[in-house]
Each structure stands twice: as C-alpha cells, then as structure tokens.
C-alpha cells in the first residue's frame, strides 16, 4: 500500500475543510452554529484547520432555549473565547418577550420555539449562511440533506425540490432574504466524531462522561430531575451513574447508565451499542415524521 492514501478521518476532514472554505469564499455574512455539543466542537476544529493562521472569518451563533444544561453553556462560552471568536447568543426567553415566539398554552418544551428565535437572529444580523453540525446518519429525514441546503425567505426546507449536488461543486447562490444551511459533517457518523475528538484531543463538556445524577423515569427513559418539570409524587426517581450520548434540552435528553470515563470508553460503548444516538431524544419520537416536520419549518 502506498503512503499517499487517506484513512477515513483524513478523508472526511479534507471534505469538510473544502466545504468550510467554500462558505467563507461564497457568502457575504456566514455564521457558525455553536452549541458546545460534540458535533459543533468538531466543526470548530475543522474551521481552525480551514482558516488558520487567519482568524475564523465568521461569528458563532447559539440559540439558548433557557433549558440548556448549565455545563454546556459554560463550555460554549469558554471555548468560543479560547478561539478568539465572537459568540452571539439569542434566547427563546427574549424571543417570547418580544412576541417573535409564542408558546401555546401549557407548552413546556422549547423545541418548537427555537425555530422563530433562530430565524429572527438570522434576520437581525443579515446572515446569508449558517454552518451547522447536523449529520446524515442521525435521522431519516437528515439522510436526505444536501451539504448546501437552501432555505427560502421563510426559512423553510423543501425536501422534494432540493438542488442536485454534483461532484464537489456547491451551488451557493441565494437571493436577498433567503439563506443557506451548510452541513460540513454530513458524511460523518457518531463513531467518526468520537474518533476525531480522540485524535485531535478535543475537550468536551463533562456531561458526556459518567457522573452521578438524580434521574426520573419518563416514557421509558431516564431524564434529569429539573425544577422546570419536577418529579410528580408517583414517579420513579433514582440516583444513577449516567452520561448523555446526545445533548438536547435538559428536560428531554435521555440519560444513559454508563461508567464511561474517557473518550476511549465512549468509543467502545458506541461500538457495542444496540440503539442509535437519537434513540435517547424524546423530541424525535413524537411521530415517525417528527424531524421532517420541524426541518421544513426551519429547524436545524
């Protein structure tokens, strides 16, 4: 075998760097969606690889639902500062206060309300492109995403009318008011992400590793005990050794009982896993087409 050959992580990395640079070159005002989660941590490293020794030529944007894990926000702020990047945070709270996002009576989840909050932030800063960390292996509707995914003036995705994407030639043209979502990690799997985190020695928020937490049993999963949705009297509450596999809002993120303390432990755990990553996300289970419906409206 010749040495002029890329292994799988090198192949995925060069593809993602190429996409990052296309975004920087083709758009006037791009932004990078950074939540502090494992996928967006990889995105930031890929941005460093694409643009150093220059600064990363775009600000970071996060929609804070108000239901984030505190560990995640702490990490998000610290990491953005380390990279010398500008971090813009827009909150669902703020969008509700200004009337942009309107909760339905009794609606506790902030999942749906993220959509108008994000779209308002895109409009406020006139962003014409948002780079996101979504991967095609996460979910069936995402498996049909393009790298460059066009959104109309209402922020909507039209899955039946996507631009064909051929070779590595990405059509980045949008008219004023429209925008593009770009997903450089489209071809990465959950395993690739953790192998990359290991290879690049990337720090991740502590909640990905095993820790002790009070958990409540709901809809067949262990969820964190929170003040937002405190346990009712008859609910089963326990002290467990857990970690999170994928991070959503604190009220809907399933906890996995796990002793995994290191990135190597996590890689081994995923290799042996018998359920998918999003199997622990209550928001995806609402119906067979739950993700598709949210994406059409402008979800990430």
């Amino acid at each position, binding site marked *: 075998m010749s040495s002029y050959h890329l292994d799988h992580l090198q192949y995925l990395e*060069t593809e993602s760097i190429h996409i990052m640079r296309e975004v920087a070159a083709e758009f006037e005002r791009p932004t990078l969606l950074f939540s502090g989660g494992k996928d967006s941590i990889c995105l930031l490293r890929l941005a460093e690889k694409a643009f150093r*020794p220059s600064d990363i030529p775009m600000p970071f944007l996060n929609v804070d639902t108000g239901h984030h894990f505190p560990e995640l926000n702490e990490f998000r702020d610290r990491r953005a500062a380390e990279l010398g990047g500008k971090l813009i945070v827009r909150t669902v709270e703020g969008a509700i206060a200004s009337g942009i996002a309107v909760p339905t009576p009794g609606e506790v989840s902030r999942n749906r309300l993220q959509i108008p909050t994000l779209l308002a932030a895109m409009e406020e800063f006139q962003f014409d492109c948002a780079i996101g960390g979504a991967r*095609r292996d996460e979910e*069936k509707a995402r498996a*049909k995403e393009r790298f460059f995914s066009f959104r109309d003036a209402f922020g909507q995705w039209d899955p039946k009318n996507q631009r064909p994407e051929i070779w590595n030639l990405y*059509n980045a043209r949008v008219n004023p008011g429209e925008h593009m979502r770009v997903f450089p990690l489209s071809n990465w*799997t959950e395993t690739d992400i953790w192998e990359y985190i290991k290879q690049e020695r990337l720090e991740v928020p502590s909640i990905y590793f095993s820790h002790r937490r009070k958990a409540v049993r709901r809809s067949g999963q262990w969820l964190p005990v929170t003040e937002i949705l405190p346990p009712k009297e008859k609910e089963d509450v326990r002290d467990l050794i857990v970690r999170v596999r994928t991070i959503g809002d604190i009220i809907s993120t399933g906890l996995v009982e796990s002793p995994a303390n290191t990135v190597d432990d996590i890689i081994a755990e995923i290799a042996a896993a018998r359920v998918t990553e999003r199997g622990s996300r209550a928001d995806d289970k609402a119906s*067979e087409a739950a993700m598709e419906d949210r994406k059409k409206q402008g979800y990430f």
Partner: protein
Amino acid sequence: MHPIEILRFNTCGSVDDGKSTLIGRLLYDSKNLMEDQIEALERSADITGGGQINLANLTDGLRAEREQGITIDVAYRYFATPRRKFIVADTPGHVQYTRNMVTGASTANLSVVLVDARQGVIEQTRRHSYLAALLGIPHVVFAVNKMDLVDWKEERFLEIRDAIEGFLPKLGVLKDVKFIPISALNGDNVVEASPHSPWYQGPALLGHLETVHIASDWDLTTFRMPVQWVNRPNNPKDHSLHDFRGFSGQISRGLVQVGWQVMVLPAGIKTTVKQIWTYDGLVAEAFAPQSVTLCLEHDIDVSRGDMIVDLENLPGMSSELRAHVCWMNQRPLQRGKKYFLKHTSQTVQAVITSLDSRTNIQTFEPEPEPSELTINGIGEIHLRTSKPLIYDSYATNRLTGSFILIEQGTNQTVGAGMLFPPKEPVRPEYQDFAI
C-alpha cells in the same frame, strides 16, 4: 492496525428493483442496524405492512416516500465492517428522477446497478449503465436481483449477463465490471454466500465491496490545485505572520512538494512552492485530495478561481468549450440564454452556443441537431464563457473537468457538464518570469 478506507457507492435500478431493500439488507445482515431502528420498522409494519417488516422503510425517510412506497430523493446511509467504512447513496430509479442518480454517482467509487431477474435488461438498465460510464465511475457491479422469483436458474442469470455484456463495449470506458446473482429480500449473496446458487463461484456483494481495489483511483501525477481562499491574517499577534500570504485549496489531482516549480494560471507565472502550511504544521509534500495552504516564493497576485499546476502536462485554457451535459430542470436547455457556470472554485457566465446532439438511450448513438434537451436528457453542447476556464477533460480529471450550470434568477442547478479534452495545452505568455 491498518487504516480504514472509505468506499463510496451508489445503488441504481428502476422502481421496485429493490434498491432500498438491498441497502436495508446490507445494514441488517452486517449488524449495522440498531434496536430502535428495528422497533420503528416493526411499528410501521404493524400499521401499514400487515405485520411484514419492510426493509425499504429504513431509507425512505420522507413521509411521501413511505406513503407511495418509492424513493424520491437521494438518501445517504453509513455502515462499517472491520475492513471498510461505506457511504451509500440510494438513488431513485423512477424515470423523472435520473438527475438524482447523477448526483449520487458523481462522488461514487462504485455503482451497484440492480436488474430485476424477471424483467431482464430494460431501458433503465441501459440508462444507468450509460450514466455510470459517462460519469467515469471506476467500478460497476450488476446485481441481478429477485433470483428467487426465477427459481435461481443459472441460464436466466447468464442470459441477463450476456445481454449487458452485449452493449457494454459501446459505452467504452467501463473497466471493472462484476455480475452477482442475489435476492435482496431474502439476503442471498448479499452478505453471506447463498446455498441456492452453487453454480456461482464469485464473492457475495459485501465481500466484493470490502475488497475491491480503490487505492489507485486517485492519480499522483499532474498536480492541480484550484485556489479556494486567499489566507492573509489580519493583524496577527505573531509577528512572523505579518507577511503571511497563503493560497488555500483542495488538491484535485497529483502531488506537490516544497521546492517544486509550479505555475499559477491564468497569469501563467512560474514560481516555486516555499511552504506547505497545514493546521498540524508544515509538511514537505501534499497530495490529492488533501486540503492545504500553499505559500509561494514570489509575491504574485493570486485569487480565488486561479489554479496552481505543475509544469508537466499543462491544462487547457479556453472560453470556447465542448461538453456532455445532463439536464436536470423542468425548463429545457435554452440556447443563447445566459447561465452561471461553476467550475472548480470559480463562477462565470456562460452561453450555450449550440446543442449538437442528444444521446439515444437505446442505441447510445448521438442523434444530431435535436430540437431541445429536456430534464434527464443527455446531450453534447458547445458553450462560451465570459472568462476562460482552466480545465482538463472530464475523462482525465473528474474535478477539473466538470461544471454545473445555474439558472439566473431562480438559482436552480439546471445542468451537470463534463468537458471534452482541450484542443491544446495553455501557452502562457510569461514562461520565464521565474529565474
């Protein structure tokens, strides 16, 4: 432990040939399916399938597809075995969705063309074979599916193989072709060898995918790097970077080393590679498809859309071009209309000056002077660009020989083009700039 390679393949065939079922079977039998995915399949089987698990539901991700039982867009799937990782593009076979096959196949190392053993070679089989050849896919597998429905008769398999081998020579460039008899529904010869086909000595499909030799698909000669982005740090804290000026891009072919002479086109200026900069440090050499940043010896004006090439085998440079084009939009190709044309890292304006022929899918013969080219049609065109392109023929370089056409106003991607060989290599004016 040896490094794990990625193999990208696509599946194509006509409606109901069992493409989605085949991918479902590959995932299921290679134990790449998870319990919650199997549960979701069982849930939908209870609702719509009369209790029968439908493996196609794994890839048919959109609601309309599940309801109509067809795949309407390219779906990507990922699975791994201890030997390789796979990226699969499930491309629809429905006649009006041929553009999706071009999309899925354009990045593939290998195509799996499904043939229904009962129907044999139909128009779609010919079309998909033709497209695989036109797109320059290095490896093709014809999977003759539903062998269980023809009682695993060897004669039927051979009959189909002979029919395909009969028209393949007309396609010209297909080098590595395999035929495998399978039943995707029952899993025969997909992951495990089937007891029903003792007459078949070859590998099961997965075994072939794991071992087909792809290392030589990237060529190390004839260096090409389109410049994507000029890297100039703004007020760097590190003083050594004050004069840093790098040219970032993904190498589309070949190899480059520090100290080598290169030429920057279209300026035609010769210079030397001073540094190859990467985030992980300086390197002495880089090769396709790595993404790097090159620093050059001379302070010359280089911008996005320029190409850095080696001095041997110079590319062509012209604004008068000839190409095959696959049309992808409901509005037919229009002569004389201005389109945007994206080629490597630059976008120019282009006018199609003539539609010379349209390919007949039955005969693979070009039909001269057709009245129009509509969606899913393939034709030969001449076009003129507002600025010369620096290019190679598609047959020698998929990345510097391809372009897309974008309709002005709607910004739809309407065509995919594959360039013919340049008439002559570029003859730069300033050959002796560098001493």
